[in-house]
């Protein structure tokens, strides 16, 4: 999780690549112990990424950049470390969203960040915010497909679900979404659109 320290502009610009580097190391570690050839490593790396990209990672981010809901959606079996890496990439993209969100009134911001085959698309709802002190809600998705329309529809429908959750006076805005119905519905939408 990347929270806490503030970064200067230079650092900020470097961060995505820094993140990428970290991820690279993560991926290389298990492979390098088995292989000595560098070219082989690269192939393995691509394979690795493709494997984990077959599942999309979806996240709703709220107050203080805390995820209030996340789901690994898709067909591939869950892989603990892949999920971890997905979240890593999504968190790195948060910074980009913060600036971008103020330059457009659109909610759907497609492909705001990428890492090799993986693309981060974001949907910023009306209740988003720049300042980390306040509640904001952003739906984030890490995916490998170019299916923009599907992704947009997915976001819009999840947005509607989120509004219904929010309208419940007994749900505290910014708290974790624990409803199992919500989870089921999001996964069903993912199957339909992604």
């Amino acid at each position, binding site marked *: 999780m990347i929270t806490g320290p503030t970064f200067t502009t230079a650092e900020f610009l470097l961060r995505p690549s820094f993140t990428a580097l970290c991820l690279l190391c993560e991926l290389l570690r298990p492979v390098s112990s088995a292989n000595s050839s560098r070219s082989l490593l690269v192939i393995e790396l691509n394979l690795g990424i493709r494997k984990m990209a077959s599942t999309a990672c979806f996240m709703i981010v709220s107050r203080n950049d805390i995820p209030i809901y996340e789901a690994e959606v898709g067909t591939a079996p869950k892989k603990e470390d892949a999920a971890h890496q997905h979240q890593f990439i999504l968190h790195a993209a948060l910074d980009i969203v913060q600036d971008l*969100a103020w330059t457009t009134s*659109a909610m759907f911001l497609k492909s705001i960040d990428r890492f090799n085959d993986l693309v981060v698309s974001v949907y910023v*709802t*009306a209740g*988003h915010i720049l300042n980390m002190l306040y509640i*904001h809600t952003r739906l984030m998705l890490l995916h490998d497909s170019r299916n923009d329309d599907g992704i947009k529809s997915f976001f819009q429908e999840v*947005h509607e679900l*989120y509004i219904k959750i929010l309208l419940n006076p007994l749900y505290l805005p910014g708290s974790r979404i624990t409803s199992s*119905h*919500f989870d089921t519905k999001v996964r069903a939408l993912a199957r339909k659109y992604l």
Partner: protein
Amino acid sequence: MINVGKIKQYSNVLERPLSKGKQEVSLSAFAFLFSELVQYNQTQVDNITELERRLEDAGYAVGARILELLCHREKGNRRETRLLGILSFVHSTVWKVLFGKSKVLSLGGVGCMGTSRLRVGSCNVGSLMGKSIELVKILQKRKVSIALGGYLVVEVRSVNDRLMAIKLVVGGLTFNVVNAYAPHAGLDEEVKRHFWEDLDEVADSLEKGTEHEDEYMISEKELLVNRFISIPKDMGAFNCGAFVAGIVRGVLENAGFPAVVTAHFVPVEGQHRPRTTILIKFAEEVLRREATLG
């Protein structure tokens, strides 16, 4: 047991479609409920400030939800990213849905950044009723094109068909421009007298005009929540409008425009009941961001 209920059974709330916002309840049902809210909170506090804070909190919870709902339903999922946009959203969309009418907003100015040149122009806007935002937008657009980097927002007050006051802030100086359309000779004495009286009033009010350029006001002759509440003498300046102020703050803050929002009574001469003014004071960061967005 017989089942005659017409409520459609949904396996859970997420299946239920979002409402179109057309459903209504009687005003008195709301009035009764609201007065219980006030009375209950009175039992929980020992001073007016605390009571207003609690009402504001209750309003905030409404505002935070209404923002997300209305942006989705009324604005086709467009977010507001600019100060005037979100203010317009509050006083038109939110006001209309919640209170059944939109509201003319009087605008405070925003301080000007850096050096600027002043351009004075005159434009014919016909009736200004409900158009102050549009006018400000036009003015702002023109100014931005000249005063590179810096910009002006102005206070616009339309007093009546003949009188209008504009406040400009240029490089730290405040300019008050009063535009008057004097009655021609053929009109009644009565009309003329009114005109001069109004003009006097404008001149007076300008002097006590706000010096805080980050403040905006929504003024309401009779705020819904104040209509059915009479305040006992011992409660002083207590204003139930704190609840509405809370709604406004909930909308603004959640949309990324943190502000301090308060409700005040403003006495109106010759009238028994005072007006309520919702005063919005934006946080510095909001104004700073506005400046960088240009």
